[in-house]
């Protein structure tokens, strides 16, 4: 994990706590696919796959604001899997946290090296 400045870490922890309502977060059962190196931080492809999840939150630990998006899967979701494209301000950890059907939480993360940051001046 990369060292973060204190305010950024606080914002990240607050955002996670809001999603989990303070519950313990385990590991495993969730896959985050992101490139190891992204040449352009403006559009970084990411995919999350968390079988049995009701919702998955994506976070960018090193962005000005850590929130990226939250997927909620409905009764007709064919799989608890989704991909999108995100902005990363610089090299950082991308974090995915899933809320499972039984109310438990699980997380994973992946470090993405960014050559050109994607949040503008």
């Amino acid at each position: 994990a990369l060292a973060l400045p204190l305010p950024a870490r606080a914002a990240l922890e607050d955002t996670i706590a809001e999603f989990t309502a303070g519950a313990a977060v385990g590991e495993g059962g969730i896959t985050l696919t992101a490139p190891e190196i992204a040449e352009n931080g403006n559009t970084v492809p990411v995919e999350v796959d968390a079988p049995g999840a009701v919702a998955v939150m994506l976070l960018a630990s090193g962005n000005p604001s850590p929130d990226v998006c939250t997927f909620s899967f409905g009764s007709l979701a064919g799989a608890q899997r989704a991909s999108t494209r995100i902005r990363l301000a610089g090299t950082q950890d991308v974090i995915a946290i899933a809320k499972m059907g039984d109310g438990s939480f699980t997380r994973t993360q992946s470090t993405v090296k960014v050559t050109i940051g994607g949040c503008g001046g």
Partner: protein
Amino acid sequence: MAEGVRARVKAPATAAAGESVTIKTLISHPMESGQRKDGDGNPIPRAIINRFTCVFNGETVVDVMLEPAISTNPYFEFEATIPEAGDMVFTWYDDDGSVYEETKSIAIG
């Protein structure tokens, strides 16, 4: 309403009953993050699509909350179960109150 917003959806025209199909969506939108500054150093206000939903015959497939860290021209790919023939409705909600909607009919066959 943001200018030139155009939604594109890729969904199969037919599916087997109960089949899980891949859906791809793209909408042209600048997704102004609120982090950028203009030439005079003034911040450019945030203007993004903040929510996207996909509903089939009234049942939710996915409901996504978007933040400014989603790229320009938001793209989503996901899986939908098709229990019977019907309409898949895609809706994007803009910060400025605009709502963009797209519908695809899927038949069983």
